[in-house]
Every structure is written in C-alpha cells, then in structure tokens.
C-alpha cells in the first residue's frame, strides 16, 4: 500500500502510512508536519507500533500536540496539532 498524504479540509490533513515499517512512518510524519502551518491538524494512520514511540517523542520535542491516540487491533490513528 502506497503512502497517501491529502488535504481533508482547511487546516486538516491526513497521512496514511499503513503498511510501512521503520523508519518510513516517522520520516513521512516529519515531512508532512514540516509542510503544514502552525495550528493545522494532521490525522495520522499507521500500523507499525515501533514508530509510535518515535513519533510521540518527536512531537514532544517540537512542541506539537497529540490530541488523540486510538489503537485498534495493531492499527493506530493519531490526531496531531502542529505548534
């Protein structure tokens, strides 16, 4: 499955990196967030558990806020607000 980055509405984006393993999810998340404006929200879909820890640390370091974390049978849906 290919990576998918799309705009859902103004200020709301979606990045689907399901099927990808390290380091792709964290690199794509970093890249997507770098292209968004402060205050924009990213819905991130991934299923590589190990990437979650890195993404959470990256958000914490950069000040980006993780608004919601949903885990469902090995798949993760996180909502991240860019600072």
């Amino acid at each position, binding site marked *: 499955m290919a990576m998918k*980055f*799309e705009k859902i509405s103004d200020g709301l984006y979606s990045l689907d990196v399901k099927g*990808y393993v390290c380091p792709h999810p964290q690199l794509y998340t970093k890249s997507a967030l770098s292209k*968004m404006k402060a205050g924009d929200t990213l819905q991130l879909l991934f299923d590589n558990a190990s990437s979650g820890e890195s993404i959470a*640390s990256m958000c914490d370091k950069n000040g980006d806020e993780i608004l919601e974390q949903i885990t469902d049978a*090995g798949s993760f849906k996180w909502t991240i607000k860019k600072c």
Partner: protein
Amino acid sequence: MDQVAAIAATGNAKAGSEAIAGRKNHLWAFLVVGFFVAVSVGAYAANELYVYLMAYLWFGFIYGMCLQGGRFCFSSAFRDLFAVGVPRMVVGIVIATVLFGLTASLVTANGMSAFHAAPFGVHSVVAGFVFGVGMVFAGGCASSSLYKTGEGNMVSAIVLLSISVTQAALVDAGGFLNKLVPDSWRASAAAKNLPASLTPTDGFVDQYLAGYVWNQPKATFADLLGLPNQSWAGAFVGNFLVGVVLPALAMLVVVYAFWARKGHLKKWKREGKPAGFGADLSGFWSMVMSSKRTAIAGLIIGIAAGLHMLVIEGLRRKFGIDNAGDILKAVGHDFGLSVKGTVFDPGYWYVTTQEAQWFGWLFNKLGWNNTTNIFFGLENGIPNPVFNLAGWMSISLIGGAAVMALLNNEFKFKKPTLELALWAVIGGSLMGVGARLGLGCNVGAFFVRTANGDTSGWLFGLGMVGGAYLGVKFFSWWTERKMAKEMAAAPDLQL
C-alpha cells in the same frame, strides 16, 4: 433518541468486538507460551542435559518480551537521532549497556565469564559501517528484526531471511571473491596449519579471518590498563568504569548537547526558570527519563544479559562441559559438529551466528559442501536447527515478542509491499555482510562486547553510527522525493 440509541449500540458493538479480539489475543499468547513450555518439558524429559537448551530458550524469551515492550532497537537509536532528533532509544541502549556492564563485571570478577575479547582494528569500523547502513535500509537491526517478526511484521521476517542466507552463503563463497583477497592474507591463512578438512585459502571470509583478523590484537580496557580481567580491579575499574561508564556518559553528554539541550532550555525559559548548570542538569535527567518504557526495558535486558552469562557458565561447570557440542554428542545428535567437535555456544546473548547456521544446515542438506570453511567447519558447526541449542534463543525471542504484542493488542500480521521487501532484502544482506566481517551484529559485536569492556565493541559501534548516518541521509532524500511527487499530483496540497 433513536440516534443516541444507534450510537450507543455502535459503541457497544465496537467494545464487544474489541473484547472478543482481546480474548483471542490472550488465547494465542497462551498457545505460544504453551509451545515453549512443551519444548522445554519435552527436552528435559528426553535428557537432563537439555536444561542447557532451556536456559538459552527462556533468556531468549525474556529478551523478546523486553525488546517488544520497550520498542528496543539499535537501529532506531541512531536513526531516530539523525532522522527526527529523538534521543530516547540511544538513552535506553546506554542504560542497558551500563547495567549489562555492571552484571557482566560481577560475573567476570567471580571467574564465571565465558567472554573472550575479539580482534580489533580498522575492520571493526568498516564492518560496523556496512552493518549500520544495512540496519537503516532494513528498518531495524538484527535483534529488532526478530522482535518485529514476533509482532507479525513480515518485512522483518524477510530481513531475517536475508541476513541468514547472506551469511550462510558468504562464509563459503570463493570464486571471484578470492580475487579480492590480498596475497598477504592468503599466505598468512595458509601458514596457520588448520585441520586438513578445511580449505583456508579458498573463500573470502576464510582468508579474511585466518589471514587478517586473527593477526590483529585483542584487548579489553582492563588489558590496556595492565589489570587482569578476572579481578575486581580489572573487571570494575578497567572494563566497567573506563570501558563502559565513561564512554557511555560521554555519549549521553554529546547527545544532550547536540540533540536535546536547545529544546530543553527553550522550554525552561518559557517557564520563567533561570538558566545555568541547574537547567542543564534537569535537561540531562529529563532526557534520560524521556521514555520510561525504553529505560525499563534497557534495565531488565541489562540484568538478564548478565544473569544469562552466569547461568550458562554455571551449567557448563555442573555438567563438566566446555561447549554444547559435548551435549549433542552425549544425546546422539552429533550431525554438523565442527572439526573440533564444537557447535556455536556463545554463553551469552547472540543473534546472527545461529541464523547463519540454520541456512548453513539447509544448504548442506541440499548438497552444498559447506563444512570446509572456518566459520562452519572449524568454529560453529551446522547442527540440525531442532538441536541447535543457542538457536532456540532466537526462536524464543520471536515468541516472547509475539506474546508481549498479543497481550498489548499490538500484534498485526503485515504483508510486505514490493518496495519494503526490496529494502528488507538489501538491508538484510548488508547486515549479513557486516555481521560476518565484524564477527557479530549489534548484539554480539556491539552490545555484548562494549558491556564486557572489549575495545572492538566501541569500534564496531563507531562504524555503525557512521553507517546509520549515511542510511538516514539516503532515506530522508527518498522520503522527500516521494512526498514531493504526492504533493505535485494533488492540486489542493500546494502548501
């Protein structure tokens, strides 16, 4: 009201399906544990000597649980540092190394260590570099590929296959590779007077080992300070304090200065706190505690790895053996023993050699005469994987990780895409080459050796960091390229 009822019903249905999935996961976890219990009981019932197998098996299981629970990955440590500026895994690895160093020193000082320093030189750095590039391409190091396979990640399973096959083939490969060997290596290998069943002047790895690596010096930090390894001063001052604690501390200080300090001081200033040494001390500590999950895993791995050494050495003394080959001879499964009658039996945590042996055995059964090389023929043998005692350590590591993932609802069977499968094969092959040139992987050549005060461990680590940096640079370029393509194809993404 109808809408509320419908939402409630949907919520109840979701909670119900989650509960069923949770119960299924628990059942699978019990089955995996049951399998390893059955193997242990069956082996012990067959022969008391197989308690040796049980030791490897259950330590492997603990490693698997810790690696998965702590997301413990040596590749992630350096890759995430360079790629996304996250130091948490480097911290976890340093904690594990220091803890293992402490327990290993206790074992060594009491004369119970089976550890031997490896030859060091430029080759350690070069091998680490090749391995480092490979682990970034593959998406995980040799040990994390095992635990991720346990999470149901089939990309990691491909990495595992690739490492194993590459090693098994490389250690016996001659042909055009012989032309790359300097004459001095060939002459030196020929002069080693190895058993007649071996062909040390045919094959790149044989000539590399006997003609070059064996001629290099071996030294622990205790040796460099002129202290006996098996003494309290040698083990604790030489190998632990100078060989582990000081370099580990220096590593953490560098990581803090370059990757964590700026962000911490910004936050500190925002909170209106005064700058100074206190701010840095607090920042350093918060970096160390940034992921309790990883730090705790590091702590348990460090202690378990030391206990593992103690238990195996204790069993060797109890049974009066030097090597697991003696057990295989005693129980009548002596196929695939080396010319010395030994098999691979490190006495501590190791990953890649047993993987090479699995495919070495398979290739041999398929008709490849691969017992004339040093790696299989002289040192490690190619026992049947069922009777490969150290091999069970890797199988159970996958099992331990699977149990942890199942219990945390994180198990997911993931089919590889063509792109990821390709990276897995390339990365796994590079790791296989690096592991054989470096006489081990991120565990055997880096973690175990650094913790035991072996100078070659830090040299391999230095190369590994350099390789990881190059791999990250490549993947960052690759990601940006794909992102740019995606954005160019979508007009509403012109940000």
